[in-house]
């Protein structure tokens, strides 16, 4: 039993990272109907930015709560700025172009980010300092949980709940939902669509940045090309939950993390990805709009 619970903890940790990244995909898709293929690379980019911010400000030796918070805030701000820049330069000019043109542009943007990271930080694996979080380990009834895991679970829950209320309780949140449903109608109601899209990219990129930093602190080794793997899993999570649907992305991320941990722990390491994608294709065939997605008539 404690092995099962341990696998749950493992799965939820990685699942909440997927969820944070999935939110970025799902919000952009919801508003722009665009698969933002560059998002995964932005996550990897954040990890490297975080590493440099940390080294620049604190010189790798000082650790305190203030230091950690500064690193997170700085990194999130920089990455959010890059995200907005990405939208301005690579996506906005293509808003009226054929849909696949924007997809190619997104793929190109991903290449640009990934290779910039390689040129700036080099092709070798970079190692995150181990002292960002205390190496405290708790053992509760045979289940081991580390400080970093608690931070990942805690911070991502707070961010997700916060985002949910932001979308549903605030004026900007309502505007975001309006733009997602019908851009033209939203424009007629006096909503500045460009501003809403900018906000979407700020939030999505910042959440991705937090995920990227957690990946660095949790796994320590970061590589310029790791964004693809996290991006793909998060993207799958977003679709499972129902792409365009914010609670769906959170649910999808957590479920995917759990599903992966259980498959790896009890069935097969070798076939874990196959199970994931068979599940995904199954969901697509039986319920194309995902678990929480609403069934809407196809727009003609």
């Amino acid at each position, binding site marked *: 039993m404690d092995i099962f619970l341990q696998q749950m903890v493992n799965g939820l940790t990685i699942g909440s990272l997927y969820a944070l990244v999935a939110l970025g995909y799902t919000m952009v*898709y919801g508003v722009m*109907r665009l*698969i933002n293929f560059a998002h995964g690379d932005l996550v990897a980019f954040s990890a490297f930015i975080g590493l440099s911010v940390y080294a620049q400000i604190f010189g790798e030796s000082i650790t305190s709560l203030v230091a950690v918070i500064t690193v997170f805030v700085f990194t999130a701000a920089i990455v959010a700025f890059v995200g907005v820049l990405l939208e301005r*330069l*690579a996506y906005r*000019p*293509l808003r009226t*172009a*054929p*849909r*696949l*043109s*924007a*997809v*190619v*542009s997104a*793929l*190109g*943007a*991903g*290449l*640009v*980010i*990934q*290779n*910039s990271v*390689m*040129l700036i930080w080099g092709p070798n694996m970079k190692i995150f300092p181990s002292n960002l979080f205390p190496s405290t380990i708790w053992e509760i009834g045979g289940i081991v949980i580390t400080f970093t895991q608690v931070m990942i679970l805690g911070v991502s829950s707070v961010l997700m709940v916060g985002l949910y209320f932001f979308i549903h309780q605030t004026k900007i949140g309502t505007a975001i939902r309006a733009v997602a449903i019908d851009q033209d109608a939203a424009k007629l109601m006096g909503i500045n669509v460009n501003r809403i899209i900018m906000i979407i990219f700020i939030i999505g990129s910042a959440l991705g940045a937090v995920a990227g930093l957690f990946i660095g602190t949790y796994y320590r080794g970061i590589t310029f090309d790791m964004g693809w793997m996290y991006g*793909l899993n998060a*993207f*799958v999570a977003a*679709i499972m939950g129902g*792409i365009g649907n914010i609670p769906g992305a959170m649910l999808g991320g957590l479920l995917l993390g759990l599903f992966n941990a259980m498959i790896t722990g009890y069935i097969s390491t*070798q*076939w874990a*990805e*196959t199970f994931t*994608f*068979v599940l*995904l*294709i199954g969901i*697509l*065939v039986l319920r*194309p709009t995902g678990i929480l997605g609403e069934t809407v008539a*196809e727009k*003609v």
Partner: protein
Amino acid sequence: MMNKTSLIAIALLVFMGFFPLFVDSAWLAVGTTFLVFAVVALSQDIILGRAGVFHMGHAVFFGLGAYTTAILNVNFGLPILATWAPAVLIPMLVAFIMVAPIIHLRGDYLLVATIGFNIIFIQVLENDVFGLTGGPNGLFGIDVVRLFGYDFSSQTHMYYMAFILLGLTLLIMRNLDKSKFGRAMFYIHKDEIAAQSMGINVRYFKLYAFILGAGIAGAAGSMFSVQYSAVSPEAFNVTQSIMFFTIVLVGGSASLPGVLIGTFIMFVLPEMFREFETARYLVFGIAMILTMILRPRGIWPVRFGNIPDFLKKGVK
């Protein structure tokens, strides 16, 4: 009267035909790779450009062809010639089984499903199913083409085999445009729902495009495995699929010269700019974005207006 496209096609074929006389074997190898990838890109275009299906898993069919030849040759000792037919038929069969259940999915969902198939395909190869695929390192020591005691092993032989394959592919595509299938494709691409209400069986034709594209990609895969005498999973991963996808859209979907230009840009230019090794993909990414912004329909977009050639015939 020949049209402009045919002229260009002929000029290109003549040029490519004489290409080996002027270059050394290193460039001949690049030329061979160009031809093989051009065939794959054209077959991707049948599915993506002509049938308009968002398909990002074409490396599966390319890989199936390559692995069919490799497995039959390395594990069962069949001569390469005997593997050609299975290397075309197996990808077609798999395309049918794989795609039939999902062909009705809407654009982006289909795109994700095809990515999913590609990832599953790679995992099957890596896990060395039935001990056939050689696991993550793949299969090595694939034979050369032998016929009547001659072996066609030189780079020049390889080049001309790929050249003939490209010629065949161009021929198929030419006939395709003139056929019932070509006309149906055109309507589906323009307006799927209108085509459906006109009585065109959209599912059938999309599936047809998939199976045809898979077969051609399989043939190219077989050639690829002989060219490098080795196959391994990473040559057929999603990144490769994304490459083929990008070639078609950057070049110009449903446009023959467009797809060839796309292949040239994505596969030959990187060879020429080896010295800028590290920065070249950065430049590539920027070029992809700029191309899409400046020419959203590709570098050489297909130029028929709203009235396709086959309807104009009678009017002239």
